[in-house]
């Protein structure tokens, strides 16, 4: 606990507490639609944090992160549908498979010194050929999609992750802020410092005794496991899975927008980024619909514009800017001014 909260300014803790408290009572206040928007925002905040560990802290760019979402999703869903295994057990299998995939990609790349853009390309390649594989994988529905039984329940069955939106809302709320705590804990350990050293300069990192291969592998594996857990959630929330959607390139891009906009290499950046991006995107969709405009892809266009603006004016992301304005200690962030 000390390693998570120690040294964090009271003001930051207060604001965080306020945020969590309002999110906890939100289901009692807002309507079903708004709740679904917050829910999906929290989902992107969660997977964004997972990606941020690997890119923002360890400096390893993955552009195929949806691979882990898809593996977690399909594994837990298949175990549940075919064998009736609870997702609370299935998630461990899903995470293990994602970790194995991450380890495979990492060991290939890092062993042979493939870095930067080439590493990113490798992650895309793995996600893409996994998509093609699943498009021909009849056991999980292939191209036709894989569906979880939808039951109309009044009560929630948490053990099988079957229930209404409110249950899912609290699950992702918990995951999102548990991830924040776990990340803070990791980043304040030797591991976190080693990751940042590798991000800043690999050669210098090696010279101070850091086994860069090992620590990059750990980053990929932890990030893969966290992301896969997000996949389990999304599978049981949406009840349907399609290879093109679960493993699609557009999903990988969507996943990394929040941390980039919020601030890579900052703890709170991915959460802030998600809360900026997702509600705006949804709001825009509603606005367009109410004006009778049916423009497919307008949300993507909007994301593109936001990304341009951020990269042009605040390349470090929004969080460093805001945290300074709020007078929150720079220690909330990984890197300070």
């Amino acid at each position, binding site marked *: 606990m000390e390693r998570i909260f120690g040294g964090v300014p009271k003001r930051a803790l207060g604001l965080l507490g306020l945020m969590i408290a309002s999110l906890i009572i939100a289901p009692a206040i807002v309507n079903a639609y708004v709740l679904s928007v917050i829910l999906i925002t929290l989902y992107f905040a969660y997977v964004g944090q997972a990606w941020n560990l690997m890119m923002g802290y360890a400096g390893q760019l993955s552009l195929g992160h949806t691979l882990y979402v898809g593996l977690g999703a399909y594994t837990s869903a298949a175990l549940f549908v075919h064998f009736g295994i609870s997702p609370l057990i299935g998630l461990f299998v899903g995470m293990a498979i994602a970790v194995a995939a991450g380890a495979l990609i990492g060991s290939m790349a890092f062993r042979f010194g493939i870095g930067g853009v080439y590493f990113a390309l490798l992650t895309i390649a793995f996600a893409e050929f996994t998509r093609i594989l699943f498009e021909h994988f009849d056991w999980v529905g292939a191209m036709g999609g894989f569906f979880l039984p939808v039951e109309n329940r009044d009560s929630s069955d948490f053990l099988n992750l079957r229930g209404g939106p409110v249950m899912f809302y609290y699950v992702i709320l918990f995951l999102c802020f548990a991830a924040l705590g776990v990340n803070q804990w990791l980043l304040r350990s030797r591991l976190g410092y080693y990751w940042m050293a590798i991000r800043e300069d690999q050669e210098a990192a090696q*010279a101070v005794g850091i086994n860069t291969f090992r620590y990059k592998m750990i980053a990929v594996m932890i990030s893969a496991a966290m992301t896969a857990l997000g996949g389990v959630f999304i599978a049981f929330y949406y009840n349907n899975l399609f290879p093109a959607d679960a493993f699609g390139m557009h999903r990988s891009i969507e996943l990394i927008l929040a941390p980039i906009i919020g601030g890579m290499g900052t703890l709170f950046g991915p959460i802030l980024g998600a809360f900026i991006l997702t509600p705006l995107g949804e709001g825009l969709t509603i606005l367009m619909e109410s004006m009778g405009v049916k423009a497919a892809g307008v949300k993507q266009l909007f994301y593109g514009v936001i990304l341009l603006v951020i990269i042009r004016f605040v390349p470090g992301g929004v969080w460093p800017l805001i945290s300074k304005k709020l007078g929150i200690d720079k220690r909330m962030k990984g890197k300070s001014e």
Partner: protein
Amino acid sequence: MSVPLLKIDQLAKSFKGLRAVDGVSIEVPEGKIYALIGPNGAGKTTIFNMIAGVFAPTEGQVLFGGQDITGLRPDQVCQAGIGRTFQVVKPFNDLSVLDNVLVGALRKTPHVDEAREAASTILKQLGLDGKSQQMATNLTLPERKRLEVARALATGPQLLLLDEVMAGLRPTETDEMVTFFRNLNKETGITILLIEHVMRAVMALSERVYVVNYGQLLSQGTPDEVVNDQAVLDCYLGEDAF
């Protein structure tokens, strides 16, 4: 003491046929400060890189404390007890000065708090304590050179390899650095091998000097012997180092 702390034996390195280092043997006894000098392109940094594990030698051996460390990775060489600085400084730019050194100190302890304390102490010794909360990217070049030293020292090495840490310093700053290394050597018994062009520092610090030229050992001896060696003067002719 019969076994030198560092012994490189007939070390050679070829880059696509070019023999950058060609059969160099050097010994550095424990607790001594030795220097490696020579004109630009003589192969000094290549020798350092082979000791530090950046690349494996084509031929020859590196022995540290009697153990063969030839071909180990840089992190393994560091773990064995050799710290190094880079000629072209490589600070962790987006980390604070304190965190830069803290990362080094984590070699000796897994506990961040202990490493932070150790890092503070070292920064104080190097006169960088006033800058500890600054980002490394904001430091001046002389400060970055000192940061390189601090980070390498934090790993707790038995042998410190210094690659031109005095280059670009003003004479008074050079003298401060010389005093620092001399005291460090006296107090901790740390062994130092330095590459240096600043003869003022080489003369003041090192007990023995190796001169390399064209990848080969040209001369060796005490600083006085070396600067009076005609072969050494010839190889530097045209340079204003002497």
